[in-house]
């Protein structure tokens, strides 16, 4: 990286194959790649454990919303393998730029789930310090976080850091202009980005075929970097391929696109009514491909599964769910004056005055 940000010296043809060659035609890790990757039983059990916990938290989010404790919940059931696999594949020094559904990633990064729920309770627009967890805020305008990750990754390259940056988004997000601009920037600046498309086949009610012309993973070639479609319900495949993509990026070999194909098992959010646009028969085949069941099968095949694992994970899930519930339901509503405090790092006098008037008016009303 002598002159400009990134170099594109080693072009990607053979390396593209290094990612693609790890997967069979169903996007599942080949036996050979599995051996080469050497993911230990312990690691696989950890992936399992986190998936079980995260599923439980998702369920609790749904419960809390139904009980009126949250304004909204966006369930991620079906995404556990993609989110847990990807998040744990990234080195602790790597960064993650999530989209609004990447709750399980946040949990994997050690962010307090009760705090996050504050956002869905309407207490604040965010909850964690991104620098503490190397985890950017959830972004609601679809696709817009993708170029943030690229800009950040350009910065990592400028600082000569060995950091890679994962960015999560849905397949609907690939329709946005921002997705494309970010893909192109990443290529031109050779930014250390792993683009993770969590293709759950629905953008609210719009199915993939009305959303995406062509195949998402195929698009990477047009930008000159590797793209693969991985089975997004198989946590080992996701974990291994993301880890490899992140390693490549960290080594200065540039971006990669990973399309994790799975399914949105639940409504888009609790405001949604999927019976209007899909049937139970549409969902059924994907129940057969449940990420947790599949991981258990993999563990069994390795003779590494035991009921204790499942029991302990379930218990931990219950405990964390209860703690999350306690945290969010007992969280105080912040003073509205805080809204003013958070706008700027260096607030102009005019805003300080406005705040003073606002607070004074509130107090008068309170008195009256």
């Amino acid at each position, binding site marked *: 990286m002598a002159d400009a940000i990134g170099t594109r010296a080693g072009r990607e043809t053979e390396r593209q194959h290094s990612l693609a060659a790890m997967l069979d035609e169903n996007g599942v890790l080949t036996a050979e790649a599995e051996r080469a990757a050497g993911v230990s039983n312990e690691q696989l059990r950890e992936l399992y454990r986190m998936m079980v916990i995260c599923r439980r938290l998702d369920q609790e989010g749904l419960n809390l919303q139904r009980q009126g404790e949250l304004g909204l919940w966006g369930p991620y059931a079906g995404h556990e393998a993609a989110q847990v696999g990807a998040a744990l594949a990234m080195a602790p020094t790597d960064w993650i730029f999530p989209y609004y559904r990447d709750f399980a990633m946040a949990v994997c990064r050690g962010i307090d789930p009760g705090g996050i729920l504050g956002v869905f309770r309407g207490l604040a627009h965010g909850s964690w310090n991104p620098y503490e967890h190397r985890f950017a805020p959830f972004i609601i305008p679809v696709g817009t976080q993708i170029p943030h990750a690229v800009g950040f990754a350009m910065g990592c390259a400028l600082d000569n850091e060995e950091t890679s940056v994962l960015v999560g988004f849905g397949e609907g997000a690939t329709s*946005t202009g921002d997705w494309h601009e970010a893909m192109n920037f990443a290529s031109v600046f050779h930014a250390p980005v792993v683009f993770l498309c969590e293709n759950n086949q629905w953008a609210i009610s*719009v199915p993939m075929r009305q*959303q*995406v012309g062509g195949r998402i993973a195929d698009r990477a070639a047009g930008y000159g970097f590797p793209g693969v479609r991985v089975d997004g319900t198989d946590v080992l495949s996701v974990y291994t391929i993301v880890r490899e993509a992140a390693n490549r990026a960290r080594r200065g070999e540039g971006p990669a696109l990973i399309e994790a194909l799975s399914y949105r098992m639940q409504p888009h959010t609790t405001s949604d009514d999927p019976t209007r646009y899909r049937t139970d028969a549409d969902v059924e085949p994907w129940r057969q491909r449940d990420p947790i069941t599949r991981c258990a099968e993999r563990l069994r095949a390795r003779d590494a599964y035991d009921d204790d694992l499942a029991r302990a994970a379930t218990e931990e899930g219950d405990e964390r769910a209860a703690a999350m519930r306690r945290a969010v339901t007992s969280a105080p509503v*912040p003073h509205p004056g805080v809204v003013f405090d958070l706008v700027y790092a260096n607030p102009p006098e005019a805003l300080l005055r406005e705040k003073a008037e606002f607070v004074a008016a509130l107090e008068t*009303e309170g008195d009256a």
Partner: protein
Amino acid sequence: MTTVTMGKALNLALHDSLERDDRVLIFGEDVGKLGGVFRVTDGLQDEFGQRRVFDTPLAEATIAAAALGLAMKGFRPVAEMQFDAFSYPSFQQVTSNIAKYHTRTLGAVNMQLVIRIPYGGNIGAIEQHSESPETYYAHTAGLKVVTPATPADAYAMLCAAIADPDPVIFLEPKARYWMRQDVDLPMAPAELHRARVAREGADATIVAYGPTVQTALAAAETAQGEGISLEVIDLRSLSPLDMDTIAASVRKTKRAVVVHEAPVFMGMGAEIAARLMHDLFDVLAAPVERVGNATVPYPPSRVEKLFLPDADRILEAVDRTREY
């Protein structure tokens, strides 16, 4: 006479427009099978088919741009932006092309299209779902910007917007989608740019639009109990403004308060207040007051009510003009 919600009135306006004119098309995200996240397009794809009512990929710039191309081809596209803040990706297409295409083609090509945008807060939503973007559109010459406050107007104005040969930004006060009214449908299309005296009064004029009209009327009702008679103007059109109707009212009451959810700073109230104080400098008995959001990003929903105009804040502003 039937009782309809504003959402239903909009749905009927779309329905009747599709029926009346086979060049009318409806598209956007989730407008098909789902019928829109607010069900404003409910049942329309079933009845009119996927060629006239269809879902698009998630790409607002191109939703707007496709509307431009289809209008040029002689269709009458009605495009939906799912929420206020999600109209921003289309900002360049709307501002640099849709608003300027008639000019650019020396009048040869009409931009007969409507962009529907649910807007405003007060629904307990997460970030980006409660914005009031009217300043951005109203300041853009070449657009027409309107917003209904009642189910009847929602119907009549949307029909009129679809029939108008120019690009109309149709802002739908989402907090009022569930508001009910008895209406005789179908109604004649409205005159698009004429404000309405929503309530007559003598002591001060409240100028409101979209979601705040109902709030203003509630304030007027309360004031009535205190012996204060407030006139309420429902603007309906934000660009252009019907200054005649506003000024006629203020000429009578000599006091005015403008109310909106958008931040006061550079909000519609700025233009209205500036015009009123300019044109009625010697008539006004007190400065025009403005009630709106503070100069902050839309706040989290648990505190939003404190930032939104409510009857109390409106009446305090009225008091300021009366006690001046």
